[in-house]
């Protein structure tokens, strides 16, 4: 996405991307879910009117892309109303769903209300593995049926596969399935380690050899598609655990992304709830105040907060010092350099994780699946 805002702490650009995490409720149990571990302990969901007011305020500030996500957004009974309001406000709306709970009638009703795009996530291209990872015996067949319905109703479609050590070796089958289902875009996103994925990191991180093979095969398919003039675009997201420089996380803290969680807490990214920062809530503050003035959103804007070696690094305007959540999860201090960076004095933590993926990864059955019971146990700590 093109950014227009400056990275100065004084004048943030518009929050071009609004992610509305409508609910943490979800019928699936993916062990790499990015929702917080203690989702079961979070407050009540925003009402329909509260969400529409959030959409209106963010649109006034310049938000143009709206993600309707979760949890599973289809659990909300007011989706048609929310979609209609988003369309009237001029948003490009994206429904980000597992496909569970979707019906052909809903696909049609959402189109009529003005939904622009549907993204369906899969767990794997093999029915058995998909259903095992999802924690649901019927998930795969439902997803395939709904992907066909989405295309039949004329939507553009993104198919999203979170890849990890248990499914990445079948990347050829994943790409074949996506082409067969006529996906316009395919996200082959290697697991990023936050939330439940962080808890299960040792059992999810692919080995370097697995990753290299997957990337090579993806490039072969890209070339094939290019030669055919095929519009399907393959987007391969590598896990930053195999990089020597950190990712430009969210294109900079509070730079263009605004996430509103089910209870109205505003975050600069999906994972920031894990940080020891008090983030503002839309029930107490305007979006303008939250985006421009709140201490949470200004905490890591610009470059003044940076310690060394980031502060004097000539790449700081490229990667903004990496990911604050990763720095916190791995080192205990969100203001530390992202350990992914080879210049970080804690880069050994990443090297250890790579070694573990090579030598001692736990089996699929040992993963902690994401469900309410586990979440309640985790909150009790």
């Amino acid at each position, binding site marked *: *996405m*093109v950014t*227009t805002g400056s990275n100065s702490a004084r004048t943030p650009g*518009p929050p*071009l991307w609004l992610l509305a995490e409508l609910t943490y409720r979800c019928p699936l149990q993916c062990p790499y879910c990015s929702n917080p571990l203690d989702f079961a302990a979070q407050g009540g969901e925003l009402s329909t009117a509260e969400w529409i007011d959030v959409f209106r305020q963010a649109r006034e*500030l*310049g938000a*143009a*892309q709206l*993600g309707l996500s979760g949890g599973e957004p289809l659990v909300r009974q007011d989706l048609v109303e929310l979609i209609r309001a988003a369309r009237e406000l*001029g948003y*490009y709306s*994206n429904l980000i769903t597992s496909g569970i709970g979707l019906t052909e009638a809903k696909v049609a009703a959402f189109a009529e209300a003005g939904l*622009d*795009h549907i*993204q369906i996530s899969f767990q794997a291209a093999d029915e058995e593995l998909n259903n095992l990872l999802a924690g649901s015996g019927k998930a795969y067949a439902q997803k395939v049926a709904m992907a066909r319905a989405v295309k039949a109703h*004329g*939507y*553009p*479609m*993104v198919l999203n596969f979170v890849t990890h050590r248990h499914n990445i070796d079948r990347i050829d089958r994943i790409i074949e399935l996506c082409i067969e289902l006529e996906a*316009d*875009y395919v996200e082959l996103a290697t697991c990023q380690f936050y939330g439940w994925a962080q808890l299960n990191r040792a059992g999810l991180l692919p080995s370097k050899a697995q990753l290299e093979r997957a990337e090579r095969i993806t490039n072969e398919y890209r070339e094939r598609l290019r030669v055919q003039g095929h*519009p399907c*675009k393959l987007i391969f997201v590598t896990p930053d655990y195999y990089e020597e420089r950190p990712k430009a996380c969210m294109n900079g803290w509070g730079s263009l992304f605004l996430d509103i969680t089910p209870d109205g807490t505003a975050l600069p990214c999906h994972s920031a709830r894990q940080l020891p920062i008090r983030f503002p809530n839309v029930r107490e503050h305007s979006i303008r105040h939250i985006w421009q003035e709140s201490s949470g959103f200004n905490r890591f804007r610009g470059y003044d907060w940076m310690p060394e070696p980031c502060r004097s690094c000539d790449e700081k305007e490229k990667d903004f010092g990496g990911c604050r959540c990763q720095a916190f999860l791995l080192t205990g201090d969100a203001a530390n350099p992202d350990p992914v960076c080879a210049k970080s004095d804690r880069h050994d933590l990443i090297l250890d994780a790579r070694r573990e993926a090579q030598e001692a990864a736990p089996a699929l059955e040992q993963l902690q699946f994401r469900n309410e019971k586990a979440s309640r146990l985790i909150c009790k700590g």
Partner: protein
Amino acid sequence: MSAIADEQIPNLRRGFRFQWEPAQQAHVLLYPEGMIKLNEAAALILELVDGERHVAAIVDTLRTRFDNVPGIREDILEFLEVAHGNHWLEFR
């Protein structure tokens, strides 16, 4: 890529939307989970891409509006080619 013919009719690819964004003071092209901020020249051309006008009509309209600036036809064709190559628009 083969040259674009005058009678071809460009149309935005399904799922792409062209609109004015006051906050950015620019036209943008919106598509699944993405946005392209357009410069003025690109916006002038895309404003005329409506699935009905053919290439020659787009060129004529802009030529009239810009008083026959030299090279305008080439600029328009070049943009349409890039946009087509990026799968932003389709021809029929």
